[in-house]
């Protein structure tokens, strides 16, 4: 039995993946060789939670001929913390492995909370941090949580490696700066500023849902304008997740916090730009509702981080 679902000649998905050759390299170098050799015809496979759907729907063009499974590369499975400096997470580390890491929970709380908020237990077991970023969905949970720490990624190809801040990585829904021969190798999260606390707030309709609006925040010394650091990042309200870069300067001003928060909300709302769903429309929440969620969510997450009071 083989199923094909189509309507008016448009194929939505097929039961079978396209005809593929499969490689399971053991080292980064082997993976880079394969990527270099097959270029646009090759595709990286990590947890495959998104890839299998895209392959069935024949969405990736040109249709891949070679699949490079990176889940057996040990170097990509490491979580390393260089004390006082940075946290380095291999691209093939799963959401579940992040959730099981006590240090991440304590020090990089926004990342931990965003990971715990992804999908269902099956998706967290297989899905990876690299896949979440490389997939570059406008609704992805991890990018905003990483952006409030000024995180960056290392991309590697046969020609060498480069570091790209996450704020410069996304170009649009499912679009990013990676070249066809590049592999996302690791995610680097710099040590948070002294005294910082962080959190991630996700509005969703059910436990396993994708974000209607996702807000990450990092706060240090909120009461002292000279030392105060407040960073805000959002997902699912624009074509890419983004860091509200104006916020950090704004919150340095010596004005009542409640005023500054109102200003930040206004700026965040002005960034709204249809977070495209699958067919270029957003069925899950209308603009007015998302703008409302930005308002109450930004207030709630900052109240929590500044006063320790959870209202949502």
């Amino acid at each position, binding site marked *: 039995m083989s199923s094909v679902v189509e309507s008016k000649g448009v194929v939505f998905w097929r039961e079978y*993946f396209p005809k593929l050759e499969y490689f399971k390299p053991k080292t980064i170098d082997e993976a880079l060789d394969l990527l270099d050799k097959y270029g646009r015809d090759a595709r990286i496979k990590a947890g495959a939670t998104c890839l299998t*759907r895209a392959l069935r729907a024949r969405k990736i063009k040109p249709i891949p001929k070679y699949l490079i499974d990176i889940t057996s590369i040990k170097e990509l499975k490491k979580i390393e913390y260089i004390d006082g400096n940075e946290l380095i997470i291999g691209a093939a580390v799963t959401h579940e492995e992040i959730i099981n890491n006590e240090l991440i929970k304590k020090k990089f709380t926004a990342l931990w909370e965003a990971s715990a908020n992804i999908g269902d*237990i*099956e998706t967290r077991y297989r899905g990876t941090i690299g896949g979440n970023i490389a997939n570059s969905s406008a609704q992805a949970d991890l990018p905003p949580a990483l952006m409030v720490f000024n995180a960056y990624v290392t991309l590697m190809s046969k020609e060498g490696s480069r570091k790209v801040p996450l704020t410069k990585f996304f170009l649009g829904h499912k679009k990013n700066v990676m070249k066809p021969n590049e592999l996302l190798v690791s995610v680097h999260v710099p040590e948070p500023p002294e005294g910082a606390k962080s959190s991630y707030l996700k509005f969703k309709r059910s436990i396993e849902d994708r974000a209607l609006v996702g807000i990450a925040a990092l706060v240090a010394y909120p009461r002292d304008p000279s030392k105060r650091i407040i960073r805000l990042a959002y997902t699912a309200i624009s074509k890419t997740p983004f860091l509200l870069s104006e916020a950090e300067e704004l919150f340095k001003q010596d004005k009542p916090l409640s005023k500054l928060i109102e200003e930040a909300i206004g700026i965040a709302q002005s960034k709204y730009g249809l977070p495209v769903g699958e067919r270029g429309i957003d069925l899950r929440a209308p603009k007015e509702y998302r703008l409302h969620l930005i308002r109450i969510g930004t207030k709630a997450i900052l109240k929590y981080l500044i006063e320790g009071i959870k209202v949502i």
Partner: protein
Amino acid sequence: MVRITLTVNGEKKEVDVSISESLLHVLRDKLHLRSVKANCYRGECGICTVIMNNRLVKSCQVLAVEADGAEIITVEGLTRDGKIAPIQRAFIEKFGFQCGFCTPAFVLAGHWIVNNMPKASEDEIREIISGIVCRCTGYKQIVDAIKYAIMLAHGESG
């Protein structure tokens, strides 16, 4: 074609698969384990859930080649020597199903919870099964059945 070895419900099986096939296809159409249901093929509904290496996975999202060497459990493997597992008895007694289409997935999720989280709270049970969709029951009876199965397997204190 690639030859893979699977241990399915305790039995070693060798199967020739192509890279274009998912584990779902191999279990359902090559090994004829018809308890494994196919539905959305998009990872959204959880109906194709099986236990692979003692973890719940959506078999439509696992490439057949990837499963080489894996240990798989489907509902067919829950009955031992003609005796049904506690989770099966619990689903019958607590009316855990109506049309039955989603039942194999929930029974396996419940079986996994019984074996791995004997102290699971109702919230934890709901969290674990949240990736599986049922269009009939409203989930209440399913959660009741899983709680009851934990009791059957581990006693009152469980």
